[in-house]
């Protein structure tokens, strides 16, 4: 087993350059299918023997995406389109896009004109999850995705293969949750940036491979004495907490991340695929159990409750609301989040997450003021 810094550096490098991973899998003769945020049935890609790879944009000031995506579309979709149009995703056999919001509605059209060489497999999850029929609907929708993936893979995807992938994904979820707990005992080693890298790298690696690496990291951490963190602790909520600069600012200000409700991170790992008879029905069941996420319709204040619980359980001093620029689903939830966390005695600060700029100057000032409040 390599030593801990090496292991962490490896995942950092995966998180920093998904392109290298794409090249690596392609060189192994594997087919790779892009998976847009936030929830796609990546298990089906996995079951087909292909590699599902997250498509989460990146820091770029769009130069061509503006042709199809107005300036007031969420920052992450603009950069995904930019990268797609510039050929940065070349090598993907297709992309799967879940229509979770208005930006996605539009992107489904923009992708088809802007990135003609990478076919789009769109799908939509049911939002009225209380109605009898939502689950069957989604299983059928996944069935259509499965057929399209079979065409790309050139062979059928068996029920057993999907069951096998489901087991791998559930076990990966458990490992990442275990990592999040272990990280909190070693906040000196697991800096905000490293925590983020371990979680983000999951999107670009085959899940069994990733789980194995994270398990090793957890084992190595267990060998270290528990660290008494004397700085501040926060919980992050939002779509993503990037760029790395932002996380560096946290570290510089002695702020540790002790929990997250980020779409790119823990929202991926907190809901397992339930047991059941039929694999597509099981995958549909996972969507029905998802909660406390801005792209899931719920009548309750599940998300603020979860954020507060996370903060209390992990003794956080405050909450950082990472508001993705022009992400309306998150914007609607902002007032409730800000108010309820305040009522729970948790100070919060809202940071604009914008992939179109490297400049974190504004965030720096806000975070410096915030840390003084804690």
């Amino acid at each position, binding site marked *: 087993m390599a030593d801990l810094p090496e292991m962490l550096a490896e995942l950092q490098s995966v998180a920093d350059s998904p392109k290298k991973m794409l090249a690596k899998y392609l060189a192994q003769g594997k087919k790779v299918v892009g998976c847009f945020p936030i929830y796609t049935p990546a298990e089906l890609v996995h079951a087909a023997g292909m590699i599902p790879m997250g498509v989460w944009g990146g820091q770029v000031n769009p130069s061509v995406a503006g042709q199809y995506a107005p300036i007031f579309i969420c920052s992450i979709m603009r950069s995904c389109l930019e990268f797609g149009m510039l050929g940065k995703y070349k090598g993907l056999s297709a992309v799967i896009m879940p229509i979770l919001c*208005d930006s996605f509605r*539009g992107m489904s059209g923009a992708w088809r*004109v802007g990135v003609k060489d990478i076919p789009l497999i769109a799908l939509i999850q049911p939002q009225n999850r209380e109605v009898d029929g939502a689950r*069957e*609907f989604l299983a059928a929708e996944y069935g259509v995705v499965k057929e399209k993936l079979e065409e790309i893979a050139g062979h059928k995807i068996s029920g057993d293969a999907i069951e096998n992938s489901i087991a791998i994904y559930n076990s990966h979820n458990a490992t990442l949750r275990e990592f999040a707990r272990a990280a909190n005992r070693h906040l000196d080693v697991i800096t905000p940036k490293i925590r983020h890298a371990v979680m983000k790298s999951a999107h670009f690696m085959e899940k069994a491979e990733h789980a194995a690496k994270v398990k090793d990291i957890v084992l190595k951490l267990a060998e270290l004495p528990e660290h008494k963190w004397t700085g501040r602790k926060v919980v992050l909520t939002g779509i993503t907490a990037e760029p790395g600069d932002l996380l560096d600012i946290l570290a510089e200000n002695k702020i540790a991340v002790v929990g997250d409700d980020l779409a790119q991170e823990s929202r991926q790992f907190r809901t397992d695929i339930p047991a059941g008879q039929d694999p597509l029905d099981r995958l549909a069941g996972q969507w029905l159990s998802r909660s406390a996420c801005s792209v899931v319709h719920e009548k309750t204040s599940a998300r603020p409750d979860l954020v507060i619980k996370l903060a209390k359980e992990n003794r956080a001093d405050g909450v950082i609301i990472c508001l993705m620029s022009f992400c309306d*689903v998150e914007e609607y939830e902002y007032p409730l989040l800000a108010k309820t966390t305040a009522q729970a005695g948790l100070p919060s600060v809202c940071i604009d997450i914008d992939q179109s700029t490297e400049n974190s100057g504004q965030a720096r000032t806000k975070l410096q003021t915030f840390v003084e409040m804690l």
Partner: protein
Amino acid sequence: MGEQVGQKPKRELPRSRVLVAEQTAKIYRDAFAAKARGEKVGWSTAIFPQEICETLDIPVLYPENNAASISAKHLGGELIEHAEGAMQYPSRICSYARLNMALADKIQDPAYSKADPLMPSPDFLLLANNSCTQLMKWYECLSRDLGIPIFFIDCLFNYYEEKPAKHKITYIRKQIEKYIWDMEAFSGKKFDWDKFLEVQKRSQINSKLFDEIIRLNMRTPAPMSGFDFFNYMSCLVLARGKESTTVIFEQLKKEVEEHIANNTTTFPSEEKYRVHWEGIACWPNLGHNLKTLKNYNVNAVINGYVTAWNVDYEPGDLDSMASAYASSSTNSLSTNTIMNMRADTIENYNCDGMLCHVNRSCKMMTFHIFVGRHIIEERTGVPCANFDGDQSDERIYSEAQFETRLQGLVEIMQHRKEANHG
């Protein structure tokens, strides 16, 4: 969707417009009266299956329509400010939502009377997300803040061009059925299926009638200023299933036919150019839009927004109704589908150009413009011009930019005309 929008009427209003005003006033009055009697009143998204509450005789008002009316009267600014200030909503969410959530908050104070028209505070919400996903988030906020239930029809989104697949229709039909039972239980009223069939038939009559009227504007020169149609949209949103709407549309049809017979028009200057207007109107800026269009002799003879309410189905067939609600809004269809429909319209209405409202509130409508503009240009050859605006937030629209963009479009349209004739 605003009431009596556009410029202050110099002439006497046509009878159909008087009827619209009366109908709208009655719907609001009835809702307030029901509320005063302790009955339940609902708020609904614009393209929700209105047939069910119509059948149960439960009053329902429509926040999008209401926000449009308030904005057209320049009364929206203060509410938007309240949403962004005290209520902490980011300024980037849809301005209808900002305006309405602020209104919902304000009317909790019985003394509040500034907005016009006012709505009674709702006891339940009717949500269909066919127009967009923001509606879902907006209604979640209302539901939490007011502590009232949502009746939800998730209408999905047609990301490809084919008709909604069977599993989609089944899911939506099941929701409509559940909604009927749930609403029966909630209201304590018995659902009358025979009356339901009649309401469905009436809704179809009204939709078809309006479609026929709009088509009369295919004539050159057009009998109507295209903007006039905005004045009748409240009939389709608030009263799609009511007989009073049929009366209004029959009257309107007569008026338009009279214009055709007399070779007159409601467009206030010579119609030199005909354009397709894409997107929602800028309600607070309608006066400026219309004045500028008039000055440049441009009649926006047709727009996609007024045709978005055609919920076309077979009465008595819930599957057909489910399919219709899944594909009636501009924003529930793929850009390919919508822009090919627009190209047909541009050809049928003999348009010389397309004027597109890049609406800061509405991501999906704007995406259609950006992604589908090439379909229009390739299929029809007509030029397109964009301008920035917003349906309610007055801070986005610039009079100077609108005029410059229109002027640019007119120049191209003029050159094309000269080339075609010369």
